[in-house]
């Protein structure tokens, strides 16, 4: 296969500890190699920044609620579609891009591996159809477990081994990647229009608490030794004062150690922490508790998190936290879509406008940045917007700009309509720190890859890893004339390679490569009890047959990449 040599770029690779030294990166047969032959194609990266392809740890980009968002928001596409151009299919959607546009936009920013944050297991065929139709980027999807009837029944009886067997079965049936938990217990309560707002609220009928669900799933996850940890969206999202529920949730991970063969060190990944870091008692005295949250995260090394930065755009919220979306439509009266999924989960969708003129939105923006700037270990704190909830992923370069330039973020902070109230509600104004390029590489490449158990495969430029490389028109050697240059450079990469194929040149798509669907294949000991429970629930309670539920043929996952886990010797 093709050989490339990316010459003279300023390389930032946390995996090898390269902090901006001028270095060459060699690609052969889809992998990073030490050297290549003289016939290798030369990519001139002089004066440019070179990093591994970025890794998106949490975005809503494929599946039924994403598509419900697309269907019900024609206005999200009005006047902003892009025409068919060369090998690029036509693209549409600002906050909820079409699958084609999703792949192209991520690739143009140098993202090469992206995780769909929440897959309702019953809809796995839909998720995989969309993943298949998203060009270039490798993708995986996280099935949700935190409101699953099997899980709640087993964990009520402390049956961790059975829970683990069920997880293994479900990951295989849905070609899923990790154990995702959203509003544990609360979304089952939402099946009756109720919720669980604290970790101790019992789930109606199932009579198990979110705390028990979370701890049980951590234990099952470590029992199996999965590549990623339990990935959680805690209870009580978005409410003033919710930070306490968040601290309670983080506390549940206390004492657990990661067990796996993938280099992962955390037992819990908390997602879109911004939405979970609110103080105050109401919208009037709403304030940031990012300091308290980060004090905890900084001092507990078995946690990783992502930020969920607000970008101050009109966007669309969508989450498996069904009751939250109902609550949100009560606040902003915008169109509300909801879908409860039998035995498994729910989803809700509501448009939202993060206006800089609204004090609460501006404080939310501040909190997202605070969290990242207060992080002591950039290998454990990753940058996301919980796309599209806090903003479209196409805004990542703008978020990088705010994190890397105090001037840029102060300019935004000081020009808010209620600036003094906004500044008073968080510590952002007093933070001088500017994220460095090396730290950016940790927070968007090496860190998320390691958290996902992909440390040997992507997120770095070490020989042997996949040749996922991004080159940006950004010269770290020159003093930064204008922070806008950060946003410009990271919006359109000069060159992007995915698995050794050149996919982007000067911001244009030049190849769609051969994307893979990442999933986790777990071998467990035979468990007749769990198999019998599965069979029974399909016969009695599901609305489709077990055989059809497990049917996920080649046409859905044409290029699978399975991470093998052997949990039979536990």
């Amino acid at each position, binding site marked *: 296969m093709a050989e490339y040599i990316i010459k003279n770029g300023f390389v930032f690779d946390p995996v090898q500890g390269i902090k901006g030294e001028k270095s060459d990166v060699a690609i052969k047969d889809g992998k990073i190699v030490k050297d290549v032959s003289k016939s290798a194609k030369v990519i001139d990266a002089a004066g440019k920044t070179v990093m591994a392809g970025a890794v998106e740890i949490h975005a809503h980009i494929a599946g039924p609620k994403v598509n419900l968002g697309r*269907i019900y928001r024609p206005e*999200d596409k009005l006047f902003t*579609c892009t025409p068919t151009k060369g090998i690029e299919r036509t693209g*549409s959607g600002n906050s909820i891009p079409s699958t084609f546009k999703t792949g192209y936009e991520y690739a143009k920013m140098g993202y090469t591996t992206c995780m769909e944050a929440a897959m309702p297991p019953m809809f796995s065929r839909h998720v995989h159809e969309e993943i298949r139709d998203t060009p270039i980027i490798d993708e995986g999807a996280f099935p949700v477990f935190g409101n699953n009837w099997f899980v709640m029944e087993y964990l009520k009886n402390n049956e961790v081994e059975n829970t683990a067997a069920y997880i293994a079965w479900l990951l295989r049936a849905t070609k899923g990647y990790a154990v995702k938990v959203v509003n544990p217990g609360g979304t089952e309560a939402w099946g009756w229009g109720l919720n669980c707002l604290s970790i101790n609220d019992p789930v109606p009928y199932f009579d198990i608490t979110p705390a028990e669900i979370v701890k049980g799933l951590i234990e099952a996850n470590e029992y199996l030794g999965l590549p990623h940890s339990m990935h959680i969206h805690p209870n009580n999202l978005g409410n003033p004062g919710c930070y306490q529920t968040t601290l309670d949730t983080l506390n549940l991970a206390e004492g657990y150690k990661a067990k796996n063969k993938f280099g992962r060190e955390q037992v819990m990944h908390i997602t879109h922490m911004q939405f979970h870091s609110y103080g105050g008692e109401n919208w009037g005295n709403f304030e940031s508790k990012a300091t308290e949250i980060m004090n905890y995260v900084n001092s507990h090394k078995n946690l990783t998190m992502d930020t969920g930065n607000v970008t101050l755009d009109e966007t669309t919220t969508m989450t498996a936290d069904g009751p939250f979306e109902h609550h949100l439509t009560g606040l902003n009266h915008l169109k509300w879509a909801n879908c409860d999924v039998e035995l498994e989960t729910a989803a809700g969708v509501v448009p939202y406008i993060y206006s800089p003129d609204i004090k609460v939105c501006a404080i939310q923006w501040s909190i997202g940045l605070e969290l990242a700037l207060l992080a002591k270990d950039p290998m454990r704190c990753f940058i996301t917007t919980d796309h599209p909830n806090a903003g479209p992923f196409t805004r990542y370069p703008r978020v990088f700009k705010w994190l890397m330039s105090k001037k840029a973020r102060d300019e935004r902070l000081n020009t808010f309509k209620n600036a003094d109230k906004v500044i008073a509600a968080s510590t952002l104004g007093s933070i001088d720190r500017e994220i460095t390029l090396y730290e950016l590489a940790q927070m968007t490449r090496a860190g998320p890859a390691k958290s996902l158990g992909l440390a040997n495969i992507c997120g770095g430029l070490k020989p042997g890893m996949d040749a996922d490389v991004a080159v940006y028109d950004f010269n770290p050697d020159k003093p930064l004339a204008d922070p806008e240059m950060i946003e410009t450079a990271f919006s359109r990469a000069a060159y992007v390679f995915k698995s050794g194929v050149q996919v982007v040149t000067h911001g244009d798509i030049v190849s769609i490569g051969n994307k893979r669907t990442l999933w986790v294949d777990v071998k467990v000991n035979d468990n007749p009890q769990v198999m019998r429970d599965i069979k029974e629930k399909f016969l009695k309670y599901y609305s489709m047959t077990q055989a059809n539920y497990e049917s996920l043929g080649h046409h859905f996952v044409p290029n699978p990449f399975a991470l093998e886990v052997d949990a039979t010797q536990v």
Partner: protein
Amino acid sequence: MTKSVTDVVCPFCGTLCDDLEVTVTDDGKQILDVYNACAIGAEKFLHSQAKDRITRPRLQQPDGTWKEISYDEAADYTAKMLAGAKKPLMYGWSSVNCEAQSVGNEIAEMCRACVDNTAAVCHGTTLIAVQDIGLPTCTLGEVKNRADTIIFWGCNPCHAHPRHMSRYSIFPRGFFTGKGHKSRKLVVVDPRVTDTAKMADIHLQVTQGQDYELLNAFRVAIRGEWLPDVVAGIPKEKIIEATNVMKAGRFGIIFFGMGVTQSLGKNHNIDEAIAVTKDLNEYTKFSIMPMRGHYNVTGSGEVLAWQFGYPYSVDLTRGFPRYNPGDTSSIDLLNRGEIDAAFVIGSDPGAHFPISAVKKISQVNSVCVDPHITPTSGVSKLHVPVAFNGVETGGNAYRMDNVPIDCRKVVDAPEGMLTDEQFLVMVRDRVKKLKGVA
């Protein structure tokens, strides 16, 4: 000897039953019997066995007779027609699997066509309402396991979705509904005394064309505001009784159909029904679900949406998608004389469209892809028969509650016949050559 194929998915209606059992001959060439399907579903399988099926494309001649041509020639004709048209319409898709729908979308994009599905005459108005106000809904298993209050508004599942009530909505004993239909209350709103209405605990015979007013009255009653004595032919006491039944339930759901999507008000009827549902969520758990017709119209909507952004009536003539039913919708395009070529697949607009629109199909160059001879094939210039989806080929489909189920192949198609997907791939590759695309 015979074989039994289990977990077969019925490719007829949006109920998408997936528990069928089909007995076939050992050589996999003949269907002998169908179990568990309703009469319509069974017939869908059994009629595919007819000995007088058209098995090759046929081109209408100037004298009105039909001449058999090869699939290659048919693909040439179709590709030339689509690639050369200024505004071709590619309509139907609702009885076609998702894989074929996707190839169709590729062709539509290359040819800068309009692509539309049967929602245009069916639940398109529901989609417009959803776009205006949202959609609190659920999967059918939630209804089976939790629902104790069922409303059928403007639909007649006894006839149109025969197994809906036994599989999901009225009779099943689910996890929290162990008493089956005895634990459920049924309200039917329909001007007619249908077989479904005869089963109801409350039947509201709404005045035709005034569903919007009646739904508005429900919302007024829920808020405890003043009501006139009679709304839409229903006395206010009955309205208040119905809303009390709805508020008193533990989990309610409104199923609705053409009685409201295609009667006066159309999308507004659905809009207000969704508003009623949303209002009821202040009191109890309530959802709403459209009774989708063709087995994969939902799938066409899903594929169009994730690829182009809109669920039907997509106009790609400017090289990017645009959407506005009334402008980009098939009947309007045909009636107004906007299109110069018609490609119809997996549906029968000849039978379902107003005659003024069907006349237009007959006046322009037209291709009809359908296993049957239909009113549409009758007015088209080229008729391309293909294998029956879900019988002679598998492929993904989406149920009325958006759940994806992969259909199964049960028997081989007659010798030499192609599937929709295979034919479309031939057309696509020819279009690529004509357009000079790699």
